[in-house]
């Protein structure tokens, strides 16, 4: 009986881990695109917040999860456009601009939420789990992996697609060249700025999607600062995953596990550990991750540097 309970616990844990990893998977794979092209976007947190808010507001108005997701992606890309204009076109410091976008994202979403939504107190319809026929009836595994909503399933598709685009297309090849050796790409006739713009837009679109998942696929509400540091944790995921989309998928799952553990252990009355220690777990693990995976060996060599044609 105890073994059964443990198995059930583990199955629920695995399912929750995948769900909680989903925003990290989207955001970190997006950031990989942008960093591979040489652009470090620490404004990810603000971008995810914008995605979460746009998704919420759109679903609130239209009752459509799909439109909400599209709005989340679009909102993220608008922020991406601002980021790209400042860092690529006028070559401002990427960290300074990222910090500004984090403030803007938090401020704008909180401002609009308090102005229009906070008093309604109403939630929205969220994406419902889809039981995959036959597989979802499997013991334990069914519960963990085959009763998720469509957004969670789509992380696999996005991961594979991202890996294919980065490593198997000429677009991906050029994108990586732009991050490693922009001058060479430039001399070869590629438009460095255009590639960096598209990388940032892909990245922020995915970050917006990750944010939108929080309101449309996870909780049914927007809360100020709902991302609670996931944008920053995604930056650490990218380092740990050595800038590989498939790596980012599994590292995100690991972080999802920390989140899930924290939630499930909090619910267990018998655990004597203070809940704050569990709350701090993902943040502590992020630091440990950066220490364990030391060095910048795999980082794109021109990461963070504007490219000057002169």
């Amino acid at each position: 009986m105890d073994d059964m309970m443990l198995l059930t616990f583990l199955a629920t844990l695995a399912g929750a881990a995948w769900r909680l990893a989903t925003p990290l998977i989207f955001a970190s794979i997006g950031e990989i695109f942008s960093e591979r092209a040489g652009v470090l976007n620490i404004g990810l947190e603000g971008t995810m917040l914008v995605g979460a808010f746009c998704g919420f507001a759109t679903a609130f108005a239209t009752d459509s999860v799909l439109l909400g997701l599209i709005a989340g992606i679009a909102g993220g890309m608008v922020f991406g456009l601002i980021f790209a204009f400042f860092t690529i076109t006028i070559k401002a410091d990427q960290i300074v601009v990222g910090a500004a976008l984090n403030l803007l994202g938090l401020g704008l979403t909180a401002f609009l939420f308090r102005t229009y939504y906070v008093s309604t107190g109403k939630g929205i319809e969220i994406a419902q789990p889809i039981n995959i026929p036959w597989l979802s009836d499997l013991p334990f595994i069914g519960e963990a992996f085959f009763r998720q909503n469509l957004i969670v399933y789509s992380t696999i598709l996005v991961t594979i697609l991202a890996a294919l685009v980065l490593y198997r297309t000429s677009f991906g090849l050029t994108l990586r060249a732009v991050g490693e050796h922009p001058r060479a790409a430039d001399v070869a006739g590629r438009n460095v700025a255009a590639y960096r713009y598209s990388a940032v837009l892909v990245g922020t679109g995915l970050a917006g999607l990750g944010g939108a998942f929080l309101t449309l696929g996870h909780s049914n509400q927007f809360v100020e600062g709902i991302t609670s540091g996931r944008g920053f944790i995604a930056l650490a995921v990218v380092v740990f995953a050595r800038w590989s989309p498939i790596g980012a998928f599994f590292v995100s799952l690991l972080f999802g596990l920390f989140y899930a553990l924290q939630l499930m252990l909090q619910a267990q009355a018998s655990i004597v550990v203070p809940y704050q220690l569990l709350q701090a777990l993902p943040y502590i693990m992020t630091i440990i991750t950066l220490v364990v995976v030391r060095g910048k060996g795999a980082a794109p060599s021109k990461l963070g540097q504007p490219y000057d044609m002169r």
Partner: protein
Amino acid sequence: MEQVNQGRENVYPQAAQAFYRTLSQAAISAATPIAAVLVALAFGAALLWVNGFNGSDVVTVMIFGSFQDMRSVGEILLKATPLILIGAGLCVAFRCSIWNIGAEGQLYVGAIAATLVGTNLEGLSVWVHAPLVMLAGAVAGAAWAGIAGYLKVRFQASEIVTTIMLNYIAIILTSYLVTGPMKDASAAYPQSARLLREAWTPRIVSDMRLHIGILVAVVLAVALYIFLQKSSRGFALRVVGLNPHAARYAGMNVKRNVMIAICISGAMAGLAGAFEVAGVTHRLYQNISPGYGFEGIAVALLANNNPLAAIISGGLFATLRSGSEVLQITSQVPQVLVLVIQGIVILSVVAFAKLRDTLRIVA
């Protein structure tokens, strides 16, 4: 043209000439931040107007509304204290190219240490206890920042990520302490015991909340300016920030300079935390800071990483923060408007600085 200029140069004594040059340089470097603030205020006004509020409130209420009497000026200076401390400290870190985004966490840890020292050690005189509390805050803040510094120099862990994670950890730690071990048993609300009277930061005028922290902040900002500009250590920090390879080649210890820079910024944030507890609330609470640590980043950037200018930009952001509180009360405008204005200030500073460089190249 050349000759005319040369002729004029001879007329003026050298000192006056140098004065004129400094003045015009100051005017040019002041133009950028002023323009940036104006753009941000215009954006704020537009945001209010679009969402059905009164746009002109940004000027009439936010700027002028907070200067009603001596008391409201005192409240602005009270808010300016942590902003100047943190902003000036971050100038040092940013000059060394250390992206310390963790001032918020360093502030919390400083507040915890100040509370520990301020609620214990009974029987000390105010001349000993109050400074001891400040020292405890500064040391704790420096140590917390030092973790990120050590992880950077030892393991090349990005300080951007580690300082942000340490923010969350410090805030969660505070919440644990005031609901658990440090909780005032007699209170229903999570809060620590009250600091002993001798540990309180002395007030400037007895019937106003303003305490001597503002003076300490201004003195330290000036001191950091002199340190950065005139001392050899400050020079080394700046060289490391501009080009670590050149610094190493010139025989400077890059790692030690990185540690010093991040610990100075941490100490300043920790001191700000100590003042919040010992000067304002006299107890530790879960949310002791309304985001001063993040606002300090904007203060430093608006000051172009010059600690002296951080005094002015800190005062400006404190005014905006006070004003946004007034605006919330009078017109129900959500106070988070101030975050939007901060973000736009940073973006405009960046844009105008680039514009100025471009104009200089063209000219």
